[in-house]
């Protein structure tokens, strides 16, 4: 099982599904961000799995995964900064309350 690419890919698909569920269903904005991190990690796992099993992609996958991690870090930074800024305004981290743009 650990030698088949499929299992790693399935694992990453499950992780992605869990992450998307959390993103769509949680009320706290930071929970949504954590779910986003889960989804990014699932994608990263896919990339690395491919790099481990497909010979021509070996080093390329590692480089791409590295860059993805860096980008994820930047995104998490900015996202949390935004949430903190909004928290200052709305006094609550719950996205239910962020409906200033509704009709």
């Amino acid at each position, binding site marked *: *099982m*650990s*030698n088949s*690419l*499929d299992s*790693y*890919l399935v694992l990453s*698909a*499950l*992780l*992605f*599904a*869990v*992450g*998307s*569920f*959390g993103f*769509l*269903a*949680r*009320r*706290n*904005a*930071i*929970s949504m961000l*954590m779910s986003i*991190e*889960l989804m990014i*990690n699932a994608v*990263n*796992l896919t990339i*690395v*799995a491919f*790099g*481990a*099993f*497909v010979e021509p992609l*070996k*080093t*390329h996958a*590692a480089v791409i*995964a*590295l*860059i993805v*991690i*860096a*980008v*994820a*870090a*930047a995104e*998490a*930074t900015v996202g*949390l*900064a935004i*949430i*903190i800024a909004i*928290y*200052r305004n709305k*006094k609550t*981290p719950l996205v239910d309350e962020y409906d200033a743009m509704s009709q």
Partner: protein
Amino acid sequence: MPIGDSIPFVGIRWDDLLFVMLAATLLVSALLVVTLRDIIRCGLSLTVSFASLAGIYVMLGNPLIAATQVLVYIGAISVLILFAIMLTQTKNAPSKLVFQTQVLVAAVAAVFIGGVIIATILTTTWPSGGQRLWTATADVAHLLFHDYVLPFEAVSVLLTAAVVGGVYLARREIGKNEGDKP
């Protein structure tokens, strides 16, 4: 004493066992992240999932990525998330409702997404070699600084922008709160 390939008497390969354990940890902690009520616990279980993911990276022959995962994700992002949780804590107890009103629809959507991807994965024949390969760090470094130097530099610019942006977005207003120095 070298251990054999598989567990004696049971016949399960060690690799498979390791994989299953790590996968189980990953999935369970991920589920806990999305379902726990107390958000700090969510953050901690997120850290656990990062850790198990690092283990899987090692299994996939990529210790460099595993190390980077631990350093960046656990060392920086998890800490960042915990700080943000602290900063946005409300005075009340964790609210009664964990999920929004659209939770059922979200579950259905998540199941669908997962199902579609898994179906695609299982029905495609991947050009896989069947053996896990080991990635050499020197090769990664060579590729990173020769063929991928532009994305590398772009990422460094991106990180700078992210730092500046984050600092700007999250700073307090000047003079709004008493006793603060700009």
